[in-house]
């Protein structure tokens, strides 16, 4: 029987200028290797033109990507995995970010990178989708923001 190891290997978010905004690895790799992979993949995807499919073969994996405004979202999945559903994993993640930040933009992810990671963790664990309900996933994040502070409190904090 064919081995069905179907999980996401990593997720990368990067800008049209090639700046990496988020990286999530579900396979253990040395840092040096990760940097090399990021460079390679960013270059591959940025060089593809708009009318092409959303899938690229890469080594023995497949890259599934989609651009939202200025940001590319890219997942590396196994060759046998479901490409269309992976596109919707990306879309659902964008929806979650949007719901949390309200009209999410690249700057939100730059300045609140840790939140982007937390939201992803609520949605995907170990490369597998954990919770597909938008309501449940966002609620988990909002629970953690229970200690909301006022703008005054924020401005009183040291700026260094």
């Amino acid at each position, binding site marked *: 029987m064919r081995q069905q190891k179907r999980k996401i290997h990593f997720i990368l978010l990067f800008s049209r200028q090639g700046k*990496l905004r988020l*990286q999530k690895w579900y396979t253990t790799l040395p840092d040096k290797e990760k940097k090399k992979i990021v460079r390679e993949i960013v270059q591959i995807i940025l060089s593809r033109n708009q009318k092409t499919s959303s899938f690229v073969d890469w080594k023995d994996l497949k890259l599934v990507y989609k651009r939202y405004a200025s940001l590319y979202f890219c997942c590396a999945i196994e060759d046998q995995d479901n490409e269309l559903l992976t*596109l919707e994993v990306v879309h659902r993640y964008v929806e979650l970010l949007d719901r949390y930040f309200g009209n999410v933009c690249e700057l939100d992810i730059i300045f609140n990178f840790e939140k982007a990671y937390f939201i992803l963790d609520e949605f995907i664990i170990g490369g597998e989708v954990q919770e597909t309900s938008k*309501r449940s996933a966002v609620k988990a994040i909002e629970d953690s923001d229970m200690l909301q502070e006022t703008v005054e409190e924020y401005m009183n904090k*040291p700026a260094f």
Partner: protein
Amino acid sequence: MPAVSKGDGMRGLAVFISDIRNCKSKEAEIKRINKELANIRSKFKGDKALDGYSKKKYVCKLLFIFLLGHDIDFGHMEAVNLLSSNRYTEKQIGYLFISVLVNSNSELIRLINNAIKNDLASRNPTFMGLALHCIANVGSREMAEAFAGEIPKILVAGDTMDSVKQSAALCLLRLYRTSPDLVPMGDWTSRVVHLLNDQHLGVVTAATSLITTLAQKNPEEFKTSVSLAVSRLSRIVTSASTDLQDYTYYFVPAPWLSVKLLRLLQCYPPPEDPAVRGRLTECLETILNKAQEPPKSKKVQHSNAKNAVLFEAISLIIHHDSEPNLLVRACNQLGQFLQHRETNLRYLALESMCTLASSEFSHEAVKTHIETVINALKTERDVSVRQRAVDLLYAMCDRSNAQQIVAEMLNYLETADYSIREEIVLKVAILAEKYAVDYTWYVDTILNLIRIAGDYVSEEVWYRVIQIVINRDDVQGYAAKTVFEALQAPACHENLVKVGGYILGEFGNLIAGDPRSSPLIQFNLLHSKFHLCSVPTRALLLSTYIKFVNLFPEIKTTIQDVLRSDSQLKNADVELQQRAVEYLRLSTIASTDILATVLEEMPPFPERESSILAKLKKKKGPGTVTDLEEIKKERSSDMNGSAEPASVNASAVSTPSPSADLLGLGAAPLTNSAPAPSSSGSLLVDVFSDSASAVAPLAPGSDDNFARFVCKNNGVLFENQLLQIGLKSEFRQNLGRMFIFYGNKTSTQFLNFTPTVICSDDLQSSLNLQTKPVDPTVDGGAQVQQVVNIECVSDFMEAPILNIQFRYGGTFQNLSVKLPITLNKFFQPTEMSSQDFFQRWKQLSNPKQEVQNIFKAKHPMDAEITKAKIIGFGSALLEEVDPNPANFVGAGIIHTKTTQIGCLLRLEPNLQAQLIVTADSNMK
């Protein structure tokens, strides 16, 4: 300062990020970062204890710096401290830092594990969630050792919150993937299966992933999951689009869960219980039906989710490979997608059809789309899609369409993307070999490959074409002619020079009869490419030259002059210099006999799996190609029957009666006074019609092989499933030596292995054979060799029999083949002028001295092949002797110990495709 921070924002972090973004150069950024690192280091080292907020902020800054791509070598301890904070946001940052910057410092791991343990025991679902996420993110062996026993308990405990169950299931999955040995199977497994029935769809979703992976390794233990998965799936696909509320995604009910359930079912064969099976078939039909319904939304998310489920259902249908109706429906559905306006769908349809092509039920249905796929290859703008089209053409290729597909792939190769050229080259090479009915087509295809994409033709490909040409004597003359012609091109690829050099070095003699490809012309042609080639190719060409010295003694001095030139003898490259020196010396001091022995035609290569296939497998990664190939192999033997040669049962083969003479020589009187002439006519018939006689009840197929050996000395004499017999022989005047190679093709030993060469009484007086016994044990995969020394005492007509007996796995094997020692082996070619020839011809007027035979040509008459056969037969080919240029004329002397017999030969091809052969001979 933009107010982009949300939640428990860290103002200092936002300012720092702004600063970095405002840096105008990489240097400025590094400067700013170094300043910050110094600041954080001093805060961490300072006397004043930091509060939780500051610690969190600095740890977060370090994290940011790390994610920018800089190295971080401190702060781990502070992050670990955050883990034990009671404030959720501090704990969260601590865990994030650990997840991203994990470090195998054992002291630290102990502290981290301790904190995780506390959080798991806290019964606070948010803290438990954080701890589980951390374990899953790190997933190290140390973590597995510490928690693999604990997590199953959390997973199945009655009072665990749903969200924690979800995290626990996927966390356990991650640990199982990295360290399966550390996850104990036990009572919990049966309870996990029942999570498929859970009320909460989120729990079912997470649990299904875990169960799928566990079921792959322990199918028996998780067998009950099949019926549960089917009923769950059934409930989902039949539900109205709003039933599942939050789990409905753009009007598609629970697409993620559906796909995971379909994937779980792919771990098992079709359900045995007819009720379950029927229900599953219904589900799959419903999914196929829904794909045809008009979309409920114009959004791409709707169609993506719907089609994601459809494609997964098709995967399951292909996996089961048992419902022809569903397979054909799937194929039709994909056929519609082949022309869809969405590029993604075209891509996926091509991909999915590749696997459908390997099912015997849908192979033919897939083949009907060949024109669309070829069109995709030509018109698709995305290389990924074209790549899939190439894959699909490869998968749907069989005997019926191989020529068309190979031609289209070659066409495409001219303009193909550089990134996929090598793969296409490999695929074309494999298909051309696999489905070659006619090996001339194979040779043409490979030479085309080199012409079109020479740079992408890897060593494996051109090695393989040489292996095949050497092992198949029927294509050698054609190959020599074709490479010779291809080399005429003013600019040809170096790979062509390599193939050409090698083939002409071996078989240049087969075309040397044609004045347009005389030895000197062949040599000059190759040498004109020499200086443009790389060192390895030049080294190969030097070997060709020395082979030419043996094949064509008439150009020996020309070649010696080249070898002797300073550019060779004093070449800066040591390999080239050495070859030049050694070859020159060899050609100078060695006798013709030694030269002929050293430079003998290459022996046939052992039959083995194509190294190209291995290369393609490597390129495509394990699993993908192998599976397909295996399936295809099985299918081709099922469906095409004739694809593989019929197997031969060695033990059923009997020894032939000595009178059943393959060459049909038995009719001639067997006396010394009535020598060769009476028989050589029919001998010739066999030479020109490869399978003229089929009298001998010898090992099937060996007749053909035997006839081939009349004109050649090396090759495979016999082969069945167990044994391969190869020959390599050489003859000088009336002496000869034959090496017989016995190859054990199995992995089991042959015992009592006894080959015996048998001569009839008559033959014994004419042919003196000496053999040495071989080792009675032949190991699996091993080859043993036996030498036969041969002396021709007087002319003879029969061939000796090689009888082989051995035990293989308890059964006794006994088989006989004819050993191709024929009188013509003792032919020495003689050159003579036209005048001489006809003078002698007329002298041979005694009926006993002449034999004439008229026979129908069984093959198209190709002058080059005929010439090659005559040369291979042993006589000299005399050019411009016969006034009719269409006729062939040969002359030679048969050497026996007692006498030498001159022999003249004329072959008169007739327009009506008949041949007239006349042979005259004379005793001198």
